[in-house]
């Protein structure tokens, strides 16, 4: 249920992974490449991952999430490589019997992913590039 991929992420494939007859709700978060950041025009993002560790950190997040909320299944797909405006950076799908757990768990996965998973994002502008969050 974890994938770090240089191919375009298939949203429906991620959703199908978490479908269940026990599910009353599925929450899906889709991170897309935005055209602006801090008042500058973004041309593209370039994602790099320490793949083995990224997968194991994502597995830890999924395990913790399942301890914290009564969810059924969790799927995470994160992109690596160059992604243009509107393309997908990450898709997280969480199914649960009740929607409250699905929403809270999905939010927790993306928030924690951004803090701990060894994936790095470079913003590419017309006039340069910046590794996001690297500097204080």
């Amino acid at each position, binding site marked *: 249920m974890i994938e770090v991929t240089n191919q375009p992420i298939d949203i429906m494939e991620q959703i199908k992974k978490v479908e269940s007859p026990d599910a009353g709700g599925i929450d899906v978060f889709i991170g897309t490449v935005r055209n602006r950041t801090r008042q500058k025009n973004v041309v593209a993002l370039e994602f790099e991952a320490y793949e083995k560790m990224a997968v194991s950190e994502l597995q830890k997040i999924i395990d913790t999430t399942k301890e914290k909320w009564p969810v059924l299944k969790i799927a995470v797909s994160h992109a690596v490589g160059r992604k243009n405006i509107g393309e997908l950076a990450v898709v997280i799908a969480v199914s649960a019997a009740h929607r409250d757990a699905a929403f809270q768990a999905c939010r927790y996965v993306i928030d924690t992913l*951004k803090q701990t998973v060894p994936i790095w994002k470079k913003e590419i502008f017309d006039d340069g590039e910046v590794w996001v969050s690297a500097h204080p």
Partner: protein
Amino acid sequence: MRISILLFGIAKDIIGSKNLEIEVNEECRVNDLKQEILNQYPGFENLKHLAIAVNNEYARGETSIKPSDEIALIPPVSGG
């Protein structure tokens, strides 16, 4: 002993390579390695923080390092 370190993101740019080979004392802990890297590559001082992973896990400063370990520098992550 000689340690090989994987580099990602801005760490790769600072050192100018995907790998770093570095010579450290036999009894080397993660904190010692980090200090040695900061000494040799002051560019890392400007980062928000710098973690070290040993065998695909975030490592504590007191963790001992062996040449057979897979070691990586983890600059501030920014996935998602």
